[in-house]
């Protein structure tokens, strides 16, 4: 939920982006047409795009405003809709920023978590979704020896991993 300070700041910021339109509360954004809302979003800086969406969400008219962000399904708005969602996707999704050699297991299941067995157990589905190369690389790193699980060995790799964690 957007704090009161951020809400006020965003309303002032958005008011400054429009000619003569003053937004005093989030609900005022609902007065804009789909085209106007999408045009306004184009003027919002990338760094403020997340706050812009959170402001819309806090207006108590989130469902209606989402329809407007979808261009009210009017063909003439399609380009603006695509531009908005492409920009927002690039701003919001962290995977876009994750590098080529990023290993999600090393990042989100570090050895420092192994004391919390309930936590580690809860990450089983996450572990099992990884490719076997990612899993082998992770196990090599964590247990400091070479692992050679092959494609389809995810369940066996999990059993091995879990037993090693239990041993610690």
């Amino acid at each position: 939920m957007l704090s009161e300070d951020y809400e006020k700041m965003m309303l002032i910021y958005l008011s400054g982006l429009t000619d003569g339109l003053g937004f005093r509360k989030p609900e005022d954004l609902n007065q804009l047409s789909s085209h106007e809302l999408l045009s306004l979003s184009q003027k919002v800086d990338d760094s403020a795009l997340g706050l812009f969406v959170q402001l819309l969400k806090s207006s108590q008219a989130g469902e209606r405003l989402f329809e407007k962000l979808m261009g009210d399904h009017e063909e003439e708005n399609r380009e603006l809709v695509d531009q908005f969602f492409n920009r927002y996707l690039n701003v919001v999704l962290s995977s876009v920023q994750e590098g080529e050699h990023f290993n999600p297991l090393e990042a989100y299941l570090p050895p420092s978590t192994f004391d919390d067995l309930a936590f580690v157990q809860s990450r089983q589905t996450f572990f099992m979704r990884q490719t076997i190369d990612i899993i082998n690389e992770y196990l090599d790193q964590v247990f400091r020896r070479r692992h050679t699980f092959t494609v389809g060995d995810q369940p066996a790799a999990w059993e091995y991993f879990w037993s090693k964690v239990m041993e610690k």
Partner: protein
Amino acid sequence: MIPGEGQNSPQPESESEAETETLAKPALNWKVVLFNDEEHTYDYVVEMLTSACKLSRQIAFRCAVEVDMSGRTVVFYGTRSDCENVCSKIISFGPDHRLPQSMASMNAEVQAL
């Protein structure tokens, strides 16, 4: 609705076509609704929907925005059996590994159209 557009389960275009379709195969008159919570990130929703519903990354992202803003979003249309299968994948996908406090999957349910 976004996920249905060319992704899965297109609706019959006319009544006569609909009748023929009904005779030929089970009716595609069920949907899977995903509900919002504060324990899952946009990344998780996109990853989960591309896996469970075979949505494109772009469409899955729009669903993520909708569930965040509206509290719910329809992520799949199909037969009851297909919808139950998709729903089962969603509720067994596991917690969001990006958030230490996330300990469960998102909630979803199958509803009649």
